[in-house]
């Protein structure tokens, strides 16, 4: 009887942890989902933009202590949010000078050739960011220090890590805000038009390359915020991006490539899978569980749970 009780508690605890982590994953996936949805570009460097967001938050809060005046509770949150605009600018510039060379209007007619170049180019950017990060930031794992990460709220017998809970709430708010931006504002609508049919969008006067640039900046910026939030409860080093590329793609594919709302649910599900796999699998294999889920989704439902089937004859 006692045994069963603790099992149920373990289960609920893993589920709570999964939900909290999943919220942040969801926001990361939304960032990646925007880029794929609008540009149809597979961005392999996405994990490294998340890593940049983590370090921006780290240096603002702990490293240089710029935000120390905000106190240990508010400072890290503001740091994470500030990572967004900073990484947005980096993404904007990278798009302008590198990625736009192989995407957008320029390669609309070249089908497979375009993808090939994009995948390779973003892989190159990923290598430069990760290893450049190693040079700039060093290889010692760091984390954003906040008392929140050591405190928990207790609801019944279930513990909610405060840093993760705060991260979850802010992630959900950011995702909602982005959703409203894309559906309610003219700029957001233009982005979605450019996503749906770049050629038609160009004909009605939408600057497709500019839309792509905004989408790319926005996508990496959003993920950087998620990274900053995640940095409150997780230590990291410059190579962390590679692992997260699969986590994020698993979420995006699960939600349906191109569906932004779907990406959030996908990320949330991945968080749940990762945390709950520890109930049955050894701790080291939690990422393997994600990869297996990812492969299963890709094989059986590549259009995802929310995506539409688009096939060209």
């Amino acid at each position, binding site marked *: 009887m006692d045994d069963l009780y603790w099992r149920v508690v373990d289960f609920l605890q893993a589920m709570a942890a999964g939900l909290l982590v999943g919220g942040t994953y969801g926001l990361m996936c939304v960032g990646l989902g925007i880029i794929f949805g609008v540009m149809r570009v*597979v961005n392999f460097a996405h994990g490294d933009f998340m890593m940049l967001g983590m370090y921006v938050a780290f240096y603002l809060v702990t490293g240089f202590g710029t935000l120390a005046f905000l106190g240990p509770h508010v400072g890290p949150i503001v740091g994470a949010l500030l990572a967004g605009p900073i990484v947005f600018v980096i993404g904007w510039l990278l798009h302008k000078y590198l990625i736009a060379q192989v995407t957008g209007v320029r390669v609309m007619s070249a089908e497979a050739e375009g993808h090939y170049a994009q995948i*390779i180019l973003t892989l190159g950017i990923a290598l*430069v960011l990760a290893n450049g990060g190693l*040079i700039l930031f060093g290889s010692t794992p760091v984390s954003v220090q906040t008392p929140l990460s050591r405190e928990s709220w207790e609801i019944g017998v279930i513990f909610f890590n405060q840093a993760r809970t705060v991260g979850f709430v802010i992630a959900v708010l950011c995702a909602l805000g982005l959703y409203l931006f894309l559906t309610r504002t003219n700029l957001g609508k233009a982005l979605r038009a450019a996503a749906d049919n770049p050629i038609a969008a160009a004909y009605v006067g939408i600057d497709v390359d500019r839309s792509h640039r905004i989408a790319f900046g926005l996508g990496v910026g959003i993920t950087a915020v998620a990274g900053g939030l995640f940095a409150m409860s997780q230590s990291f080093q410059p190579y962390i991006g590679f692992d997260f590329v699969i986590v994020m793609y698993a979420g995006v594919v699960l939600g349906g490539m191109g569906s932004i709302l779907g990406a959030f649910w996908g990320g949330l599900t991945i968080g749940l899978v990762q945390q709950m796999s520890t109930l049955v699998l050894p701790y080291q*294999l939690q*990422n393997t569980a994600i990869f297996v889920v990812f492969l299963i989704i890709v094989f059986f439902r590549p259009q995802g749970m929310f995506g539409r089937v688009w096939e060209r004859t």
Partner: protein
Amino acid sequence: MTAKRRAFLWQYAAIAIFAVAYLALGFLVRNSYYQLMMTLVLIWATMGLGWNMLSGYSGMISFGHAAFFGLGAYTMTIAFVKFGITPWFGIPLGMVVGVIAGVLIGIPTFRLRGHYFALAMLAYPLAMLYVFEWLGYQEVSLPMKRENPAAYMQFNDQRVYMVISMAMMVACMIVSLHVERSRFGRSLLAIKQNLPAAEAAGINATRWRMYAMMLSAAMAAAAGGIYAVILLVVTPQTVFGALTSAQALIVTLFGGVGIFWGPVIGSAILIPLAETLHAELGHILPGIQGVVYGVAIIVIILAAPDGIYWKVRDRIVVRRAASTPEAKPGLQLHIAETMPLANDAHPRRQFGAPLLELDDVSRAFGGLKAVDEVTLSVPEGMIYGIIGPNGAGKTTLFNVLNGFLAADKGSMRFAGQEIGGLKPHEVCARGVGRTFQVVRAFPRMTVLENVVIGAFVGSKTDEEAEHLAREALRRVGMADAEMHMLAGGLTTKQLRLMELARALAPRPKLLLLDETLAGLGHDELESILPIIRQVNREGVTIVIIEHTMHAMVKLADHFCVLDHGRLIASGAPAEVTKDPAVIEAYLGKKWMDRAKDQVA
């Protein structure tokens, strides 16, 4: 000696000269660090050759070759450490394990396209990485064998490893050379350039890709095995890590994709560069190696997307081409133009038994019935025209016929045998050729090479395939001078003829022509019609989709009309074109009523 044999001998000679020169340099170098670096160049070149075998030739980009590299390394290591098996056997064993993994990974993963394939491949080595860590193989060292070290591939002299690695790399180069110059490599290239066209031309994409995957995995596993022997210690991060997969791709892209010299060139430039920088600056700039690789592929993809080899080669070829006189494309069609326009007036033609019979064939996309209960029968020897407005389901019908799409119901019989459910290459092998509405060429091959691809299905040897291809090109009236032009630079008419020749090359019994005349000017059109008739007179039954009504009336013996997926009329051309239902389908009901009003 044939030109082909001579070309092979030249390549062998080049490989031999390279190997001897490299080893000579290696033996002159005294510093063991540089000797190690020179060995690593060979190992990464081998790894790149493995990547190139799958991704370079067939175009399916793999981010997961570390899976095979790691399995090769760990198989050898575990066999050595746990069972005392010497690497001399351990490395081949690792290659076997790699090939098995390749097959197991290939079976599900080849169903994926583009992004999904690349992403799925990325997941395999990372999943393995965690599994090997969990199994407790975080760091495994090879035991030193004091007695009889040579039997365990342990040498004090680094140069022995260099010789072994060189032997391995040369073997992979020779295998790659033979793949490139054979039906195998040509088929992979066709798959890379245009998958539907390759399948319709009778190429079994799944089979060739699987062979490529197996060879590719074996090469990567061999590289992994010898890498572990030399470094004496393996960790999951170094052999399964994402950087390992990336390095395979980077050396190949940098040096040249789809050519066996590519990975060798790339490795010879990048590995020493990155290693040297790492040695000189590694203590202050720890990630400098990765930065160099990253910058290398960013620069290469923007400046020379196919790699150094092709950049240099294109320069040379352009210079050479400028000094030879231009081929004159105006010489074509002399045969065709002198041919009498025999069945212009539709003399009573005799047809044989039904060659193609469709019974109640349907295909829907969601709620849209693209092909709706179509029943028709095409007698042998006929030119059978299918007409209908845009979106009537004509092309879908062809796609169902040649196996691109499965029919939802109904039966399709060709020469008395059911062809429903066959794959495109199988339908092609039965004797059904097709062309496409939008020409699907292999743009980077010459006209002759394009047609040779189509001839593979009807021939046993490569020589026979070339013979068939030349025959087909002559049948469509293409001049010898045009055969060696790149398909990417042809005019619409030349493309249409080339595609027709590709479909004709395996000597099919039935040709499906999808708007072969579209996009042609009046004169061009008039010059192609006799070719189609001539092909038909030589015994090929033809089903043709066409928009240009006046051309169709001249060409076809029989018309059938599709509208919204349904067969609304069928009969002699003169009758069908007067059918009110047909006029309505083409012009709309309003026009129909107006036409009636005018009559009344």
